[in-house]
């Protein structure tokens, strides 16, 4: 696992370094959600909209959108493929994306079409901790993230 300050990122997942979307490889496809750092930056989720099941998505293109803490943004696919599952629980209770990032707070499952190539540039395993540490350091030192004692994140 990778833990930097309050941010916990399981290192068995794959992470889009820019979007902070995680992917977990499962039998039916790649389950995707937002990691702890991304959720902290976005603020409290108020609404989540997801593309319908059966829709094809491209890696780096939106599979949905979210509204949180006076902010709206796309949710971008970590891999290309077809959306095969939605998380109705997170649609009904968007705050799960803030409080239960890696379990009940997931968004979609994507049946991948080009998995090996798509995973190549995602952070994984031993690469997660140094990336996360650098990310937190960069944002804190650059004044882009408040000091830990002033942050209010799950």
């Amino acid at each position, binding site marked *: 696992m990778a833990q930097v300050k309050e941010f916990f990122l399981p290192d068995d997942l794959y992470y889009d370094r820019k979007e902070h979307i995680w992917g977990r490889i499962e039998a039916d496809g790649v389950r995707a959600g937002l990691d702890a750092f991304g959720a902290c930056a976005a603020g409290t989720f108020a609404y989540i909209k997801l593309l319908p099941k059966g829709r094809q998505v491209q890696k780096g293109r939106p599979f949905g959108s979210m509204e949180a803490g006076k*902010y*709206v943004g796309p949710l971008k696919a970590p891999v290309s493929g077809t959306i095969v599952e939605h998380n109705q629980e997170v649609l009904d209770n968007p705050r799960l994306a803030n409080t239960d990032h890696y379990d009940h707070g997931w968004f979609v499952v994507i049946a991948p079409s080009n998995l090996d190539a798509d995973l190549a540039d995602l952070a994984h395993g031993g690469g997660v901790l140094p990336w996360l540490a650098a990310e937190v350091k960069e*944002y804190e030192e650059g004044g882009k993230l408040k000091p830990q004692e002033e942050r209010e994140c799950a």
Partner: protein
Amino acid sequence: MRVRLLDLGSVPYVESQTIYHGVAYAMTDASPNTISLMSPESPYVSIGFHQQLEKEIDLDYCAKRGLPVLRREVGGGAVYLDRGQLFMHFIFHREDLPRKVEDLYKLFIRPIVDTYRGFGIAAEHRPLNDIVVGSRKIGGTGIASIGQAMVVAGSVMFDFDAETMSQALKVSSEKMRDKVYQSLQDYMTTMTRELGAPPPRDEVRAALVANLGKSLGVELEPGALTAEERKTIRGLNRRFASSRWLHQKGGLSRRGITIKGGLTVVEAEHKAPGGLIRVTARLKDGDIDDLSISGDFTFHPAPLLGHLERSLRGQRLDAQGLAAAIREFYAVTGVQAPGVAPEDFANALVLLRENQPA
């Protein structure tokens, strides 16, 4: 860091939305960070990205007034916009801005606050994203990630038409509309209201540009839209005008209306044995700030209903506390309300909590 300034003056109403979206969508790694300033040539209504048009807007009223409606890709609620506001947008590379939303708002709001202060208006930033003068809000702001860009949108308020705003919103009753209008009157302000007359527009714009440069620590470079940006904007003009874009199903439930941070107007209903109770309230930090009670129940003598409404101001939305206060009111006044127990009023009021905007 280079920052391009697009000082565009008055633009067609559609483009007052599509220009900043277009600059964001056309952004590449080589694009400069951009700040745009503009006002719409004619009035319109804008709804938030995730809102459902039919639920939020009185379309008959807008049609009668000839008021077009546009869906933006920035969040928040429906708002009436016209030449009384000077729109400002940051369209920046994400890596050049603070990561946390609240820090982004600080950066964006500071030059607006400094500009108001320069004209003698005691504005301040009230987190998360309000600018206030005392208890009154003077402009709102919103953030969206669009294309490669992070966009922060806000305005300088020369003037604001609360009457048209309250008419354009779809509300569940005229009482609710009255309360929205009154709350906008009571809790919104503008430069015109603060100063007694609108200040010269050019002077305000010049002050804002100077404050932007100072706040960001850069010299703003006056610039123009590129050919690629213009092409993107033309495409967005068509998309934003399409019925499919406007009528897409949203789902962000806003059964109440936010006037400013911590201040909402909300309505709720409860069916008591003696009739329907409808409560329309302004809530301040979740407590009752102002209240109207209506319905088809009997309350005798009727003038006491107004007394009950006033006696509940300042109350928390707590079922037990409310029921106790209303029981006491019944006992002291001897009011007759067949089939409507104090607990029925309390139940209606507690429902307000659930109906507050997200």
